[in-house]
């Protein structure tokens, strides 16, 4: 089996405490760089299923009850960065494993 990790970009392309969008296999991914978190990097789908637009990477990162979340910039629902679970509705967006290694950002292609 080959390694499922895919190089996405350099660490310097990320924005501290916020998200950027990336393309993975034709799918839009929101990649968040949260230096204070254990994980440092999170990847969830960029598609906001409620606002119906590719915007989650442009939301505000928040820390609520010990969970890292992003608030959708359209209608403000929260999505957990680690699981893609929406806190307000019974909806989940996709999520991927992600890591920072040697100044580079990787996402696992099997989610």
């Amino acid at each position, binding site marked *: 089996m080959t390694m499922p990790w895919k190089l996405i970009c350099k660490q310097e392309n990320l924005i501290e405490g*916020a998200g950027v*969008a990336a393309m993975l296999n034709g799918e839009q991914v929101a*990649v968040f760089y949260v230096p*204070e978190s254990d994980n440092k990097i999170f990847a969830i789908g960029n598609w906001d299923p409620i606002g119906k637009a590719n915007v989650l990477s*442009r939301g505000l*990162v*928040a820390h609520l009850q010990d969970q890292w979340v992003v*608030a959708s*910039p*359209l209608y403000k629902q929260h999505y957990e960065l680690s699981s893609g679970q929406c806190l307000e509705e019974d909806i989940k967006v996709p999520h991927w494993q992600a890591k920072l290694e040697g100044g580079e950002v990787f996402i696992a292609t099997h989610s």
Partner: protein
Amino acid sequence: MTSTVSFLTTKPHLIVVGNGMVGHHFVEQIIAQGGHETFQITVFGEESYLAYDRVHLSEYFTGKGAADLAMTDGTLYDEHGVRYFTNSLVTEIDREAKQLILQNGEALAYDKLVLATGSYPFVPPIPGHKRDNTFVYRTLDDLDAIRACAKQVTRGTVVGGGLLGLEAANALKNLGLETSVVEFAPRLMPVQLDEQGGAVLKEMIEGLGVQVYTNTATTEIVDGEMAFHRMNFADGSYLETDLILFSAGIRPQDALAHQSGLSVGERGGICVNNHCQTSDENIYAIGECALWNNRIFGLVAPGYAMAKSAAGHLMGDAGVTFTGADMSTKLKLLGCDVGSVGDAHAQSQGCKVFVYQDELSQSYRKMVVSEDGKKLLGAVLVGDNSYYDTLLQYYLNGIDLPTQAQALILPAMDGAPVGLGVDALPATASICSCHNVSKQDISDAVCNGALSVGDVKGITKAATGCGGCAALLKKVVDNELLALGVEVSTDICEHFAYTRQDLYNLVKVGEIKTFAELLKTHGKGHGCEICKPAVGSILASVWNDYVLKKEHISLQDTNDRFLANMQKDGTYSIVPRIPGGEITPERLIVLGEVAKEYGLYTKVTGGQRIDLFGATLSQLPQIWEKLIAAGFETGQAYGKSLRTVKSCVGSTWCRYGVNDSMKMAIDLENRYKGLRSPHKIKFAVSGCTRECAEAQSKDIGVIATEGGWNLYVCGNGGMKPRHGDLFAKDLDDETLVKYIDRVLMFYTKTADRLQRTSVWMEGLEGGLEYLKDVVINDKLGLCAELEASMQHVVDTFQCEWKTTLKDPEALKTFRQFVNYEGSDSNVVFVEERDQMRPATEFEKQQLIAKVG
């Protein structure tokens, strides 16, 4: 003899006939729309009381007096020049001459006429129905008569087992009479209940000691042996009773329509269209006398809706039409819960039914669902109305039923929740149908500071009509409060145990320059989407740093972070500053050219600027490069900051202008353009008191006078309009600016996050006088500091876009994707009226289908 009364007025004359609940609501509505300025309004009512709350009429027997039930004591009418006459029956309409004839023979000319004559109780023409000690149940006078009689006798009977009949039976019981109900139909409440529901209700009511005779026709009423009356029934049996109360239905009071030849329905009722106009366009009919689409609406909420549409139409707004109303009801009759929703009789095509019955605890519930089981079409409840609110909301909002739909009428087992949480209701869900208050209206009220059910009632009027929604209202309010975290504290969020005002002072006094520093010294955790932008805004108000600095960028809401306004499809709109709305042809052409080059949708805004829609993230810097080259600056339409200073051309061009409003507007806009504040701020400057710039609806409004400038503060348009308060008169230029500096900085320093000046003022203890004291008399000794703070903001202004274009780090963030040069394939435009707009979901599917 007819004498003609004439009134000295040049306004068209609007006459309202009938001062019941709906007639009164109509007057309220038309006053609210300024109709008393357009029309001379006169009201005639037949009863001796001004409008009172007929819905709660029965409370007249349980302790309430006429004054408690009154809907007005006439003050509202007096204050708005509405003339009213009680004890005045209108007997004739002369449509030819456009005049009314009163019972006393007087005539009065009208231009527009509104009939709100309600209905009258139907008394079946049984021989003996006019005997003494027979009554109806409709007015305060009726109830006085019933009470007087009940004092003398022991037995009372209600003819009619419908909703009102049972209510009347309850009243007789409360008056201490042995009570019976005689119903012609095979069951009680035949309109609302099905057979089984009616049977359960009968059993319950008999359990309370009220005799119920269904399927019983009275043939005559004669002298009794043991009691005053004897009612002989068709089957040969009889009932003896002292008092008879007829409640056999109501009939629309359409006598005037018959008399004047307006078209009426076959079974009565004045025919009206969606604006509640009768067959004579100058005559409207509303409430229970009106027949819409061949239907009479015997409830108060539809009557209110009719009043609103007629008032709107008279005031030139044909948009509020009456298009029918929901007739679902819930009530407590003789202590028994009864509810009926939608199609209670399961008459819809292909519908399916769930039934639950419990003979032990006497309850019955039925649910009528669509053929596919997805939607609720109707319901019947007897014995327990706690299921009603949820069912009604499913019904009214067409919400898809859950898979185990039957749970909605089954008793809660093991405490499993059955209710539809108020969370699940859409914002448009109607909570109070009497006053047409939606869930959104309630959450707006809560957001604007109404923190209790009482406050919300005061603002929205919800639950002040029939009161049926009170429980639901409480749930919605509690839920909204919970969502705001209000009941716990005034802390801004879980990360800072402070109010915004506290944080502002901490930042200023502690010379704190970053979010991280503030969090470390005064907060905990890592911040969230509430505190981050709030602190970002405070830092900007106090230090006025570039907002996209590395340490500030993650604090910014998406609009601030990308210096543009995100639209529903994730693209942005761009608004360059056009101070005072003054723009040269050259710049106008540049805007047009840029829009053309990037295929942007263009629209003139309410603030006299031009908004360019549909730019993608990566286009923003390119577009701004061009705009800045042409001399434009950022308009900060994305920020909680000064938006625009709207203005008229003033004395330069206008023949009425008394001062140069144009120059003042431009100067003010340029002075305050960098200010970040708790919420957006709008200004306007008018060149004279004709007020073409609508300054009194702005946060800061300036109006030129012969003696200088009048300053208005804390006005608002939009969702909750507020007229600005006149703060000071006849100011010279310098004092005007000084006062505005102080007011705005005091607001910035003390308001809550996302609190507009209007709401801030409303919550300011001491109100306008206090603000004057602080700003004009320097009561707090703050003025020097406020001015210095403002001067700092003015001196450190930078165009954020200019700075961004010079900052490669910041520019990096404007890439659509970090690893791909393409664009977002979900952003799709179509053309409409010669411009592009976002495609709808449906259009996208069509386009994709075509391509694929």
